[in-house]
């Protein structure tokens, strides 16, 4: 059975949630990773994870209804007075799916604006489908309590994460990677009724972009699928320019209405002024190990590529690598962002030909993407979508990621803390595992809590895709990667078996940590990149 077929029951009544199908104790099945996962989630049948590359999708992609220029103004002016009017014109009804992107991060105002407008209209039981949620959107909790929102499918952390793991949400949370979200939309697993897209710049036709304007955020790639597959698309901007909005990443041809507002977000929280490299000597040590690992294995060579996030260790890694590249006269073909000042400087110094940017983290990144044609905005379709004819992630030579836990079989957890509370979204983490060399750069313990464990609390990434774990106490290479083990023979890097590091850390911490008591009621599922169910997040006892 394909995901295309899976989507069909939902398509008769788009986005409707069959309340009767929601039970506290859904049927569970064991998947190929040995995890027990629900066979129904929010009224839709699920396929348990089958193994990396084992699931073969069939069927055709989903598509929005055919539209006609007949129904849109010839002068291209799609403006309406406000969001409420736009939502009414889109035919907002009970049970619909409303989506938002998270490029404005914790500074976003548009998502709550849209949900509150829906509340004013008086609809109930919406499914909110953000590409990620942030602590400043905790107002969504009240809307869940009042019945406007039925449940959220998208990353949840902070107050929303707690609400979900305490079992207070009516439906089940569904956590997807950035690529997995595109896959779900494209395959019809999730059908968006109305996409509300915050746009730092837009024209009255609906062309929109993120690189200019007072609320500039860089790329708008996370909103692209929403704009292409939703039944209705509303663009909300605080910087309306006359047609044409140049450049445009969102095509007005997909847009129904344009709404002008005073402010789409708080610029101070959209991008950070400066992204900070860690100053912790222990974390700097980890970062330097990672850079040296790439140099000594020969992965750092002319024409190579890498990706690193915007966390403290990742930034420090980029700084070390950049120095080593200069010393060795090595140039990258491309680097993948999350872009920051450090990647931008590498571009300007000629250490890379291109930045392929998924999201833009700081002011230097935003300035660069707006002015340098070698700094290119990408989308989860090009970068991450597993149900496409390939994607960039598997072409990246090395990726440096974090994790909350990693186990002796190299399985990784990035979504929950070891006490079972939701902590992070998956982001691009799962998608990045496809790279040539996937490196988790983590401290071996945090506040006495070991990061290297016997078994991860929540499986987010299968160990067969995780090649190297770098800690301040040593570097563990996955035994499946004999080539990497051979490449570091004779190196002065502290290469150690992962079990060895775990034993040392358990001695330091005074024994293995107790396993927290988790409830057996599923409150969320973790999807794999192909839409199958990888693991279950249970209610915290």
């Amino acid at each position, binding site marked *: 059975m394909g995901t295309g077929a899976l989507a069909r029951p939902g398509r008769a009544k788009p986005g409707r949630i069959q309340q009767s199908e929601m039970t506290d104790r859904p049927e569970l099945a064991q998947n190929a990773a040995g995890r027990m996962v629900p066979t129904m989630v929010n009224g839709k049948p699920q396929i348990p994870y089958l193994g990396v590359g084992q699931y073969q999708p069939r069927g055709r992609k989903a598509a929005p209804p055919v539209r006609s220029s007949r129904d849109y103004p010839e002068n291209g002016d799609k403006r309406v007075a406000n969001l409420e009017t736009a939502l009414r014109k889109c035919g907002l009804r009970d049970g619909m799916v409303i989506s938002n992107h998270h490029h404005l991060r914790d500074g976003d105002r548009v998502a709550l604006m849209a949900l509150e407008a829906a509340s004013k209209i008086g609809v109930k039981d919406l499914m909110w489908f953000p590409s990620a949620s942030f602590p400043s959107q905790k107002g969504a909790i009240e809307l869940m309590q009042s019945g406007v929102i039925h449940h959220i499918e998208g990353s949840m952390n902070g107050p929303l994460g707690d609400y979900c793991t305490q079992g207070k949400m009516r439906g089940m949370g569904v956590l997807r990677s950035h690529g997995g979200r595109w896959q779900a939309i494209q395959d019809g697993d999730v059908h968006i009724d109305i996409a509300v897209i915050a746009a730092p710049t837009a024209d009255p036709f609906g062309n929109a972009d993120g690189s200019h304007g007072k609320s500039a955020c860089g790329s708008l790639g996370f909103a692209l699928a929403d704009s292409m597959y939703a039944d209705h698309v509303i663009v909300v901007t605080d910087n309306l320019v006359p047609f044409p909005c140049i450049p445009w990443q969102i095509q007005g041809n997909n847009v129904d209405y344009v709404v002008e507002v005073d402010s789409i977000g708080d610029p101070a929280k959209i991008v950070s002024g400066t992204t900070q490299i860690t100053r912790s*000597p*222990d974390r700097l*040590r980890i970062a330097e190990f990672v850079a040296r690992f790439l140099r000594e294995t020969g992965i750092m060579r002319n024409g190579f590529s890498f990706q690193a996030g915007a966390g403290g260790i990742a930034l420090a890694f980029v700084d070390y690598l950049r120095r080593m590249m200069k010393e060795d006269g090595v140039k990258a073909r491309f680097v993948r962002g999350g872009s920051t000042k450090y990647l931008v400087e590498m571009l300007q110094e000629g250490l890379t030909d291109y930045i392929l940017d998924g999201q833009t983290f700081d002011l230097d990144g935003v300035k660069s993407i707006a002015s340098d044609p070698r700094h290119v905005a990408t989308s989860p379709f090009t970068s991450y979508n597993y149900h496409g004819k390939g994607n960039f992630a598997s072409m990246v030579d090395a990726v440096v990621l974090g994790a909350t836990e990693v186990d002796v079989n190299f399985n990784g957890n990035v979504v929950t803390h*070891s006490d079972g509370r939701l902590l992070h979204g998956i982001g691009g983490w799962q998608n990045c595992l496809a790279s040539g060399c996937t490196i988790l750069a983590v401290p071996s313990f945090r*506040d*006495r*809590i070991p990061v290297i464990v016997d078994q991860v609390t929540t499986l987010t990434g299968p160990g067969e895709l995780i090649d190297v774990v770098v800690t301040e106490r040593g570097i563990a290479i996955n035994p499946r990667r004999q080539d990497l083990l051979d490449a570091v023979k004779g190196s002065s890097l502290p290469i150690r078996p992962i079990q060895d590091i775990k034993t040392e850390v358990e001695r330091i911490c*005074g024994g293995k*940590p*107790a396993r927290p008591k988790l409830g057996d009621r599923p409150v969320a599922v973790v999807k794999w990149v192909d839409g199958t169910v990888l693991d279950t997040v249970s209610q915290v006892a």
Partner: protein
Amino acid sequence: MSSVNTAMSEHSAEAGHWGKDIRSDLHVALEPRDGGGLEITLESRVGPYYGDAILSQTRQVLGSLGVKHARVSIHDEGALPFVISARLETAAKRAGLGDEKKALPDQVALPDPSTRDRLRRSRLYLPGSEPKYFINAGLHGPDAIILDLEDSVHPAEKDAARILVRNTLRAVDFGACERMVRINQLPLGLQDLAEVIPETPDVVLIPKVERPEQVGEVDRMISEMKARHGIQRPIWIMPILESAFGVENAFAIAAVSPNVCALTIGLEDYTADLGVAKTTEGRESLYARTRLVNAAKAAGVQAIDSVFSDVADMGGLRRWGENSRSLGFEGMGCIHPGQIRVIHEAFAPSQVEIDKAQKIVAAFEDAQQRGLGVVSLGSKMIDPPVVERARKLVARAKAMGKA
């Protein structure tokens, strides 16, 4: 306290730290009572994982100290077991309990005994009351770590730091680092010795030394305690000269005992004593430092420089270190792990020096083999002291992994 009776009585006491910004420490409030056993309340950052372990450790530690009846309130910020024991013991002792008993944590294997002339390029200062810095200090590869009981510890926390440092020497693996302790000025420093010597630090630093008798007193106490505890390993002494008077007595201080391994200098106090400003060039202390080098060499011990206190100025640190080496120093202190690498580079001989020294050593060995009394390299005759210096340099370079 007016009477012996109240002075000896038990009372409530606290130890340790907690709060949002505190890491790897815990706070204990202990209230002795006449009966009812131990009543323990615990709030912990790591409660779901180690809450039970902390409770059972608390019972075990207080039990071993003979504390039977008390209310104990613990706020834990992810403290490791050796810190938990130290804070509990401190609270108990402050409450007038526990007598002479100790609650010692599990012991890690000791590193190889230290030698008098081992490599001492860098010693990383760790404040004795900040447990979060201890566990990973050795990873950064200084030649030594130094657990400080003196200036970095508030006078009201000396008892707590002493117990914490004792437990640290016992329970923390510092890898190949030499384990040093800076005690307080005498006579307080003698109490420090009583607590830490049984855990065999490799080197004891004595601050503000002015007269050889001060070193002698420490030396005697260490020897007595070593005999009493059956300690075979050497425990070396490094006096710190921090005054004009101390510098004047440098040779006598260095030569007072064969257990002195090095002389070092504290420039903050020394420049204050002179009434001059401390500069990053160090002109004002040139006399003191060269005098110290000369005295140390005359006594056959190492000369070790002070610290460079601007942790952001790596260029200044490198210049200081290179200058310091050229004056005859063999190492210096560091106050941040980021300084270690720069210091090691600054104190390493250059490749040109190493190459030249290796040629001289080779010429010497060649002459020995051929039974020649005179060593020559090309057309130049090499004097014995030059050979000796070259041999030392090559040995040093080998120890640094450079030759």
